[in-house]
């Protein structure tokens, strides 16, 4: 078995293994990225950063559901000008690709933030066009192929780095949005962001999240995310990063078989920060057992007729 059985390359990025930290988790500081990388992640994605600082919502911002978490953080972030310093600092200590997640309220804003992030040293940009609980950003853009294409085009024109678009599952047909993103210049797609959700407390008869509505992540969303990856892979050649409920090697393998070249892990970090290492090890064992030399060989195999 080759030692680089787990290494993958897509959209100009080289990863030592196909696991990545999903955006939103521990994503503020260089030391956090470094620790996640030491825990075995092949790449890290920052929290979504915008043009201005945002303090986010008051608590509760996270509530546990039956097999996952519902969150409405409200995109807290220090703004790209402050965060650029964190990107620069991160690049001095990080040995894995640093992907900066970007959000905005207009195509121009997305482009401005992405350009600054790229100039600060981001190895790639991931567009958050699908945050389901902040008004005037994300959801609307991620649900409208025309607006999405405009955002992707403007960002693409303003940076020289790989551009990843993180899609929303909260649409009738995700392949319509995938097509819009790819035609507009996306180098890769992340599927998917959280599903629209709410938690209501029977005793107090109140919604629990301060923002009332939020997004569901974790094991509960895995079958939905897997289907989204499968549907996109069925229609397009674009590299896909599977995201939604990955907590062990079997989950990751299922995403590869559906057509993902890599997986992002977020919610499972709550149970074990070393999840990246355990997933990678498990995938490695799986490949050996199934006599594959590289994880690349199993990408999309579930589509065989």
């Amino acid at each position, binding site marked *: 078995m080759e030692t680089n059985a787990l290494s993958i390359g897509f959209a100009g990025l080289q990863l030592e293994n196909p696991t990545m930290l999903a955006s939103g988790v521990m994503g503020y*500081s260089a030391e956090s990225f470094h620790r996640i990388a030491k825990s075995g992640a092949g790449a890290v994605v920052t929290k979504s950063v915008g043009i201005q600082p945002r303090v986010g919502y008051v608590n509760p911002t996270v509530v546990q559901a039956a097999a996952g978490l519902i969150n409405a953080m409200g995109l807290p972030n220090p703004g790209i000008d402050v965060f650029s310093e964190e990107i620069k600092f991160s690049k001095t200590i990080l040995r894995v690709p640093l992907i900066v997640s970007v959000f905005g309220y207009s195509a121009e804003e997305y482009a401005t933030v992405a350009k600054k992030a790229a100039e600060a040293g981001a190895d790639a940009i991931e567009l958050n066009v699908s945050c389901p609980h902040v008004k005037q950003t994300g959801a609307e853009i991620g649900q409208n192929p025309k607006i999405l294409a405009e955002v992707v085009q403007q960002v693409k024109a303003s940076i020289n780095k790989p551009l990843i678009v993180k899609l929303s599952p909260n649409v009738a047909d995700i392949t319509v949005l995938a097509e819009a993103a790819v035609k507009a210049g996306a180098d890769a797609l992340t599927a998917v962001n959280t599903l629209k959700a709410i938690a209501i*407390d029977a005793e107090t008869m109140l919604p629990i999240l301060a923002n009332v509505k939020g997004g569901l992540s974790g094991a509960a969303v895995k079958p939905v995310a897997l289907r989204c990856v499968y549907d996109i892979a069925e229609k397009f050649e674009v590299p896909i990063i599977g995201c939604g409920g990955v907590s062990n090697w079997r989950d990751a393998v299922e995403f590869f078989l559906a057509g993902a070249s890599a997986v992002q892990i977020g919610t499972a970090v709550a*149970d074990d920060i070393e999840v990246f290492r355990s997933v990678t090890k498990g995938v490695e064992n799986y490949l050996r057992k199934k006599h594959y030399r590289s994880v690349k060989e199993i990408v999309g195999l579930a589509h065989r007729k």
Partner: protein
Amino acid sequence: MPTANNTLRTTQIVQIRTESPTVKTFVLPDRLCCKAKPGQFLMLWIPGIDEIPLSIMDASNGLVSVSVKAVGDATRHLHAMAAGATVGVRGPYGNSFTESRGRVLLVGGGTGTAPLLFLAKLLASKTERLSFVEGAKTKDELLFVREIGGVCQEKNIITTTEDGTAGLQCLVTQPLASLLDKDRFDMIYTCGPEIMVKKIFEMTEKRKLPIEASLERLMRCGIGLCGSCVIGKYRVCRDGPVFNAAQLREMKDELGISKLGFDGSRIPI
């Protein structure tokens, strides 16, 4: 497990005790938090207002107690509640103090005394000697004086106030230097304002003494995901809130110096 089987559950406050003009203790029935260990915290939901992390001050017989200072919107709402009011709870979260034997010193500042009292009760019968140094701004804010007297011998208790209305008129760190020099301690536990914790850590480092400090940071999720409470590479909610000397050394660039604000930017303490 931090998340599995630890969903938010509602419960009713069964007792409220006034500890000082600004601090009240709330007692709640909770099947999980009643098994908490000293050092752990819980997330308390004040319905429709906020959800805040609170260190646990006692846990036994199906009940958990938290001592809360009214400092902001959420805590003031909590202080205005009466017994019978409904709140939400999840946890207990975080690690706990290790159980040391031998000669143990606890140093508490302000409401930081609460988890140390919980620890002191656990250690009372297990240690050779239990010493407590407690500091507050003024006599009225010296917490749990009677309770501490119940677990530590009077000669092993030192109290300090900034205005001199009770005990020594000085900061809690002042009597420590001579105490640490003249006596041998097998473990120092501390909880309180971070500047105080930092000073005490410097004192134990100088004398090569073991220490465990409970830290506080802005917390949102409480389960190690959101990153709000990171200090260095550690998450206070998940890797802490209790840190030992080796870990405190690793965070010396931030301890008592900076923390993350609500927008995730580094702000001075």
